[in-house]
C-alpha cells in the first residue's frame, strides 16, 4: 500500500495547491519530510495567508501577534527564562535554540505565506536588548505593509527593522519613542528608501539634525524638531517654545518673504503650522492677490478656486467629490473623511488671512446650481457663515456674482464684501431670462453703498428710487413705466443723484405715447429718440435721455451744453 510520503513531488505540489495556508502550516508540523518539502517549495506555490496585521514586541520575552482578515488573532510567545515557545496554549521547549532566532525564523515563515499587503505592522522594540545586535539581522524577507509603527528608543532601534519593509507598499510610518521627551537622531533614517517613499511620517520624538530637504517630499509629516542647522531657509533654535525669539528671528523673513513660502513652511510640520496659525495677522506677509474666483461646477471638479497673484501668476485649487480629492497646482490629494466643502472653506479662510491689499475682483460663479445636487448649495452659505464667525470681510473693489434663479444667491454673497473697498457689483446669469426679485438685494448695505451696479439679470419690480444713488448703472428690466422714467429724470435733474453714464435695458417698453406726452417730442437721431434736460444747479451740464428703440436701451448721460446737437431742444429745469 502506498504512503503519502512516497508521493512524487509534483503530486505533493498539487495537493498543497488545494490547501489553505493554515492547513499547509499544520502539514508542516506533521513530520520532517513535509517540513523540508514545504520549506523548499517556491513561494508562488504557497497559498496566501491574507493576514492584515503583524505585531511583534521584543523585550526579555518576544511576542509575535498575527491577525487575519476575520480578526482572528494568533499569538506566539517566546520565553527567555523557560527557553520555550507557546502557541495556541501549547508550549514547546526550544532546547539549544536562541529564542530570538526562533522568533525571527517563525516570523519569516509566516511572511513567506503573506503575499497580500498587510494593513498594519507594529514592532515594539521598547525593551529590546539592542546592545547586542539587531534581532532581525537574520530576517531574510521584506514585509509588505501600508502602515508601520515602530517603538524604540534609538535610531539604531528604528533602523533595525525599518529596512525590512517594502518601500513600494509602505505609506504611513509612525516612529514612536519610548518617552516623548526623547531626542533621537534621524540622519540614517532619512536616507532609507522607506523614508523617502513614504507618504506620511510621524516622528513622535524630538528629531535631531532635521534637514528641510529630508522632509520636503512628504505630503504630511509630523516631527518634533529640537535643533536644526540650516542656512537660507534655515532656522537655528533650541526649542520651539521660544516663540518670541523665533518671532524676532523670523519676523523679517515673514514680511519680506512671499506668502507662498510661509504657506510652504506651514506644511513642514505641526509646530510650524501651529505657530503660523497662531501668529497675528499683522505679522503675516501679504499675498497680494489681485483676483479670486470661486466657481461651482456640475462635473468632476465641483469647486474651483483661482487666485491670481500680483504678477498674474495663477494658483488653482480644485475640489472633486469623486474620490474626495483636492488638487492644487496639478497635485492631487485625498482629503480623507472631511467634506470637500469644509476643506474648501478652510482653505479659503487660510489664504484670506494672507490677503491684506484689496482685490481687484472677486468672482463667484454658482451658475451650475441648477443642475447639481443641493449639497453644493451650502458652499456659499458656509462661506458666509465663516466670514460672519471670523468677523472678517473680503476687501475687493469689484464683486461679480453669477447666479441662476434666486436673489438669495446674491444676498448670501454680498455681505462678505468689505463695504469700504467695494465699488462695483456685477450680477450675471447665463440662462435666466425671466428675472429675479430684488427686494432683499436693494436692502443690503452693499447695494446702497456701491457707486456702480451692473445687473444683467432682469430685475423684477425695480423701484426707481433704489437705483438713483448709483453713479453708473447698467440694469436690465422687463419693462418700465413712463412715469418711473420721468421720476428718474426728475431725481437726476434735481441734483439728488449724480448719474454719469448709465443704461436701462428695457426688454418691452410700450409706453412711447406716455413718454411723448410727458417729455414732449424727441430729437430724432438715426434710430434713437433723445431728450435734453437742464439740471437744477449744474449750469452747463445737460442730462441726455437717449432711447435706442432698436436695441431696447435707454441711456442716461451728461453732456456739456455745446455737445447738444443743433435742432435739439434743451428743456429747462422745472421743479414740478
Amino acid at each position, binding site marked *: *500500500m*502506498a*504512503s503519502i*510520503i512516497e508521493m512524487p513531488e509534483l*503530486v505533493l505540489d498539487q*495537493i498543497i495547491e488545494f490547501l489553505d495556508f493554515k*492547513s499547509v502550516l*499544520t502539514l508542516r508540523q506533521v513530520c520532517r519530510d513535509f517540513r523540508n518539502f514545504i520549506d523548499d517549495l517556491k513561494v508562488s506555490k504557497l497559498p496566501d495567508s491574507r493576514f492584515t496585521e503583524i505585531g511583534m514586541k521584543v523585550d526579555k520575552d518576544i511576542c509575535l501577534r498575527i491577525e487575519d482578515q476575520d480578526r482572528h488573532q494568533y499569538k506566539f510567545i517566546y520565553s527567555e527564562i523557560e527557553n520555550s515557545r507557546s502557541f495556541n496554549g501549547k508550549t514547546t521547549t526550544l532546547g539549544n535554540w536562541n529564542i530570538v532566532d526562533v522568533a525571527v525564523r517563525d516570523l519569516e515563515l509566516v511572511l513567506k505565506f503573506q503575499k497580500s499587503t498587510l494593513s498594519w505592522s507594529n514592532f515594539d522594540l521598547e525593551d529590546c536588548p539592542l546592545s547586542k545586535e539587531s534581532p532581525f539581522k537574520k530576517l531574510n524577507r521584506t514585509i509588505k505593509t501600508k502602515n508601520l509603527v515602530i517603538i524604540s528608543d534609538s535610531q539604531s532601534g528604528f533602523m533595525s527593522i525599518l529596512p525590512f519593509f517594502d518601500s513600494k507598499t509602505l505609506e504611513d510610518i509612525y516612529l514612536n519613542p519610548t518617552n516623548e521627551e526623547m531626542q533621537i537622531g534621524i540622519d540614517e533614517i532619512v536616507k532609507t528608501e522607506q523614508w523617502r517613499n513614504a507618504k506620511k511620517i510621524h516622528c513622535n520624538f524630538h528629531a535631531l539634525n532635521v534637514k528641510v530637504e529630508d522632509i520636503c517630499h512628504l505630503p504630511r509629516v509630523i516631527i518634533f524638531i529640537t535643533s536644526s542647522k540650516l542656512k537660507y531657509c534655515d532656522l537655528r533654535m533650541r526649542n520651539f517654545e521660544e516663540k518670541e525669539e523665533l518671532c524676532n528671528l523670523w519676523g523679517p523673513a515673514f514680511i519680506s518673504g512671499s506668502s507662498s513660502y510661509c504657506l510652504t513652511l506651514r506644511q513642514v510640520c505641526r509646530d510650524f503650522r501651529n505657530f503660523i496659525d497662531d501668529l497675528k495677522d499683522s505679522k503675516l506677509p501679504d499675498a497680494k492677490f489681485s483676483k479670486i474666483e470661486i466657481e461651482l461646477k456640475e462635473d468632476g471638479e465641483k469647486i474651483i478656486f483661482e487666485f491670481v497673484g500680483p504678477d498674474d501668476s495663477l494658483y488653482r485649487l480644485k475640489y472633486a467629490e469623486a474620490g474626495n480629492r483636492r488638487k492644487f497646482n496639478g497635485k492631487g490629494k485625498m482629503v480623507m473623511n472631511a467634506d470637500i466643502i469644509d476643506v474648501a472653506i478652510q482653505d479659503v479662510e487660510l489664504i484670506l488671512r494672507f490677503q491684506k491689499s484689496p482685490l481687484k475682483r472677486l468672482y463667484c460663479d454658482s451658475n451650475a446650481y441648477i443642475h447639481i445636487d443641493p449639497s453644493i448649495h451650502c458652499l456659499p452659505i458656509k462661506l458666509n457663515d465663516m466670514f460672519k464667525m471670523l468677523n472678517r470681510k473680503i476687501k475687493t473693489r469689484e464683486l461679480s456674482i453669477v447666479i441662476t434663479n434666486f436673489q438669495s444667491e446674491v444676498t448670501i454673497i454680498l455681505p462678505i464684501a468689505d463695504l469700504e473697498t467695494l465699488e462695483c457689483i456685477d450680477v450675471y446669469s447665463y440662462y435666466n431670462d425671466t428675472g429675479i426679485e430684488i427686494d432683499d438685494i436693494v436692502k443690503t448695505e452693499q447695494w446702497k453703498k456701491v457707486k456702480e451696479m451692473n445687473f444683467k439679470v432682469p430685475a423684477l419690480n425695480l423701484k426707481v428710487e433704489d437705483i438713483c444713488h448709483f453713479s453708473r448703472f447698467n440694469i436690465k428690466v422687463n419693462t418700465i413705466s413712463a412715469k418711473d422714467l420721468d421720476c428718474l429724470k426728475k431725481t437726476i435733474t434735481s441734483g439728488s443723484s449724480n448719474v454719469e453714464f448709465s443704461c436701462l435695458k428695457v426688454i418691452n417698453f410700450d409706453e412711447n405715447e406716455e413718454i411723448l406726452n410727458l417729455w414732449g417730442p424727441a430729437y430724432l437721431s438715426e434710430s434713437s429718440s433723445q431728450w435734453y434736460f437742464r439740471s437744477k444747479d449744474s449750469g452747463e451740464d445737460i442730462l441726455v435721455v437717449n432711447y435706442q428703440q432698436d436695441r431696447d436701451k435707454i441711456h442716461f448721460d451728461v453732456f456739456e451744453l455745446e455737445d447738444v446737437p443743433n435742432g435739439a431742444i434743451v428743456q429747462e429745469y422745472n421743479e414740478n
Partner: protein
Amino acid sequence: MSSTEQGTSSAAPAEPTTAPESAAAPEVPESFYYVHGKDKVVHKVSAGALQHSALIHGMISNLGYTEEQAKANPFPFENIDGDILQMVVDWCNQHKGKPTPPEDTNLPKQKEKLFDLVLAVNYLEIKELLTYCCKQVAMMVKGKSPEEIREIWMIPTDAEDEAAEKEAKKRAGKEAAGETAAAAGDAK
C-alpha cells in the same frame, strides 16, 4: 467490469482522434488496445478513452498496431494493482471524449486505495483525474490537527521515524541488507 461496454458508442471518438491515431486505425470503426496490471487481468480499452493518459497516448500514437497485434501485445503495468487499474480504465471510459466535470464524486473514499490511485494516475499521466485525486487527498486533512493528519495519512512522528530508522540501521548493520530495513520501516 465495464471494460466491455465501449461498443455502444463507436462514433464518439471520431472527433477527438488526431492524425497519428487515424494512422493507427485505418478502418473507420474505433481501434482498441489492451492493458493489464499486476494481476494480469487484461482490459480492452478504446483509443478514445486512452487519450486521457498522456503516457499511453504517447505509446500508441506511433505504434500503428492492427487489432490483432494490439490484442497480442497488451500493455503491461506491473506497478499498478489490478483493482486500481480497473478504476482508471472505468474513469477513462466514463470520460471518453467528454469535457471533464469540475467535480468527480466517484473517486474511492478509502485512503489506501486513493493513494495507490494517485500513484497510478500520476504514472499514467492522466491530468484531470490527478487533479481530482489531489483535491480529494487535500480535503482529507483540511482543518485537522497534526496528530489527526498523522493518523489519517498513517505517518509516524519524527521520533518514531528516527527510532525506526535507527533500528533499521542496526538491523541493516547486522544483516547487511538495505532491502529488509526499508520493509521494517514500513511495518512500523
